[in-house]
């Protein structure tokens, strides 16, 4: 069974440029998460979905970040005008079910973003 896949694996931008990250979760997983992991830090949740609905986007910088999951499968995270402080690895994870002890999250390899 294929795991969580993400693309691209790496991205290098100038400040002010836009970038999109794409995530394909494990087949059948209804919950999808986006995390930001700055260098030498633990992952921090940005947003998560159940099917196509946003459950929690309270940590997503709404002025420049957006995330969608239109058909409840793949998802795209977009940064409109990148800043140097956005330099980090962006991780996507998926799980079968929302909450509860059974909802183990499976992580993709991440996209490493560098903003110059």
């Amino acid at each position: 069974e294929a795991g969580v896949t993400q693309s691209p694996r790496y991205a290098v931008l100038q400040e002010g440029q836009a970038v999109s990250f794409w995530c394909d979760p494990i087949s059948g997983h209804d919950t999808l998460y986006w995390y930001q992991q700055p260098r030498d830090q633990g992952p921090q949740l940005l947003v998560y979905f159940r099917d196509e609905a946003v459950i929690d986007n309270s940590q997503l910088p709404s002025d420049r970040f957006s995330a969608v999951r239109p058909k409840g499968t793949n998802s795209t995270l977009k940064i409109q005008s990148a800043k140097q402080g956005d330099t980090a690895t962006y991780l996507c994870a998926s799980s079968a079910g929302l909450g509860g002890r059974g909802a183990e999250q499976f992580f993709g390899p991440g996209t490493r973003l560098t903003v110059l």
Partner: protein
Amino acid sequence: AQSVTQPDARVTVSEGASLQLRCKYSSSVTPYLFWYVQYPRQGLQLLLKYYSGDPVVQGVNGFEAEFSKSNSSFHLRKASVHWSDSAVYFCAVRYTGGADRLTFGKGTQLIIQP
């Protein structure tokens, strides 16, 4: 608010020696507890988890962790480390009710010396 503290940013251990990585959490109720491992250029992989019951839980590759309610801790242990255990280890917590959010510590980099 819940938080996770991993006090050691880096731990160096000789191959074959025993290992303990420390984790303390702050929460008014006992959360679900997890240890993840991250190898270079890879995503996080679950090592083990604790929900309730026996405070010592077994994980993959010979890892185990012990939950202590009195100390609000969930330390990771291994009896004999191998060079392939070199990685970054993250402790994480999730509330037993409400939002399905994992809160991670900053991680501990494990370096295995030959």
